């Protein structure tokens, strides 16, 4: 199986000297193409830091991170932006949508940064919204949507560049169980189509959608179990 993500002895230290704080104390983790992985752990365990490093939003202090064959250490700011644009789709717990543009424009935005022609963007964004069942909300503004609808728009946007990796950070954290299940079903479908899905969650129920669970405690992986079988 081809590895899409390969972390070797990743450490992340915030601050310097006496006040230095080591959030990640040597993480080694490999994720194959097409996997669905839940990363779990209590608050302060370092799972968010790991998530940021995986998404190229932050850089490790030491260790090697290979994403889709690229060594993160050798990427400049523009190249990291390009990878975030084409290879990673983000879904956050909250504040997923830009508030002053419409739902359609939010879904179009990654294509804007990706340099896709304006003529194609609209069509693709509408198709993306249709997949999450929100075609009729295209011209609404984010404030006019419910929490569940916002997360589904975020899913449509995360998929719009057809990225190899979907990174979802507590994607259902603010949702009730019914809408949570809708969003998780969407993510499961996406995974079935071949995208690698990485979930960060503290909920066992949400984690149960994934076949593999990685548990982090105090900056190290304490458990990595595959419950497919």
């Amino acid at each position, binding site marked *: 199986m081809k590895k899409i993500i390969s972390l070797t002895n990743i450490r992340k230290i915030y601050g310097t000297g006496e006040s230095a704080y080591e959030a990640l104390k040597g993480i080694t983790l490999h994720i194959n193409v097409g996997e669905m992985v839940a990363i779990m752990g209590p608050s302060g365990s370092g799972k968010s830091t790991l998530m*940021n490093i995986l998404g190229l939003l*932050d850089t490790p202090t030491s260790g090697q991170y290979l994403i889709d064959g690229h060594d993160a250490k050798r990427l400049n700011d523009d190249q990291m932006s390009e990878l975030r644009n084409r290879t990673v789709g*983000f879904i956050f717990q909250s*504040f997923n949508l830009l508030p*002053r543009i419409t739902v359609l424009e939010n879904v179009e*935005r990654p294509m804007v*940064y990706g340099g896709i022609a304006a003529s194609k963007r609209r069509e693709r964004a509408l198709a993306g919204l249709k997949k999450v069942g929100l075609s009729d909300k295209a011209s609404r503004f984010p404030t006019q949507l419910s929490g569940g609808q916002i997360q589904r728009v975020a899913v449509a946007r995360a998929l719009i560049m057809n990225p190899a990796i979907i990174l979802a950070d507590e994607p259902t954290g603010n949702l009730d169980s019914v809408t949570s299940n809708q969003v998780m079903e969407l993510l499961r479908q996406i995974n079935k189509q071949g995208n690698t899905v990485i979930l960060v969650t503290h909920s066992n129920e949400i984690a149960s959608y994934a076949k593999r669970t990685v548990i982090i405690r105090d900056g190290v992986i304490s458990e990595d179990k595959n419950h497919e079988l």
Partner: protein
Amino acid sequence: MNYRSIFFEVIRSMRANKLRTALTMIGIIIGIGAVVAIMSTADSVTATVSSEVEKTGLNKISLSRQYTGITPSNLDDSTIHFLESLSIADVKGYEGNVSVNTQARDYVTGDVSGIYVNGVTEKTIADRNLEILAGRGMITTEENASRSRVVIVNSNLVKKFFYGDPEAAIGEMVKIGGASFKIIGVFKNPSPFSDNFVAIAPIRTLMVQPFNERGYDSISITLDPSGDANSVREQIMAAMLKSRGYADEKKADFSLSSPRQELNSFKQFMNAASIVIALIAAISLVVGGVGIMNIMLVTVTERTKEIGLMRSLGAKKRDIVKQFLIESITLTVLGGILGVGLGILVAYAAISIINMFDQMPKFLFLISGVGIIVSLVVSILIGLIFGLYPARRASKLSPVEALRRE
């Protein structure tokens, strides 16, 4: 980058913060408004003066007596004969003018008032376009040749000396500069605001009056329209200086002026003056620009989390810079457009107020095209210059820090 989508995003955020947007733009609106108003008013004045000067004839040079206490006048028919003998190319002809300030006395009351007396020939009076209220508005060849003491007076004089009845004044005598003149016509005062007394008399009559010091005040030199005024002026100056024994134009007892030269120097002066005043007004644009920078820094702080989100979607640093530059330029250009509108209104109001006074000539109203173009370019530049620092600051935020910000 999709400028259209960002532009609409900017417009929506402006609409959401109407008061803030308006207050931010006020500096730009006033600065640009002042520049456009000043430049448009200056253009209007220049155009009005130019068209007036052109009406009186740009193809003329005036040879005037420089007051040096010389009596009688040093300009007379012999001066004209001397000039004619020079046979200067491009000159169509010479004509003496008499225009004196003396006193008119009312025969009945004995009241004395200052009066301007102009000398005319049977030909030159036709150019005056007088509006005749009574009598005639012309002088005959005979009256000029025989130095008849006849005058055409303006309505102001009739109002004072003849109870405002023009018909009653015809045939009456008036004492001008000690000599008695017969009134043969009355013309309407061109300006209702002027209360000057004006009289028009045959030029040859005036030349021999004691108050005129025997001669002309000035000699008009008419040129071919295609003629070179500068060259003619040089030639006449050289010949006159030589014949009168002066080494230096500044010390001579005469002077030469050409309306074209004067008009050009007036235009240059107006241009320079309007640019200087507009530049002073433009200082307020710097203040406006600082206001823009201030509000853009606030905006960047407010939207830190959005910036993080945009970075996570793949926005490069330059995309973030562009986003905020578009926002600041939209603010300044919008302010600039409103300022241009304000400036045009102010200039229009200024010219209208000037024209409310019923004088001649009416001022033309011109909008300064240069002023508008310069203003809009300056608006863009202000948006660019004062938006760049906040925009760069936004782009330098680390994505993870920005996302974490509440």
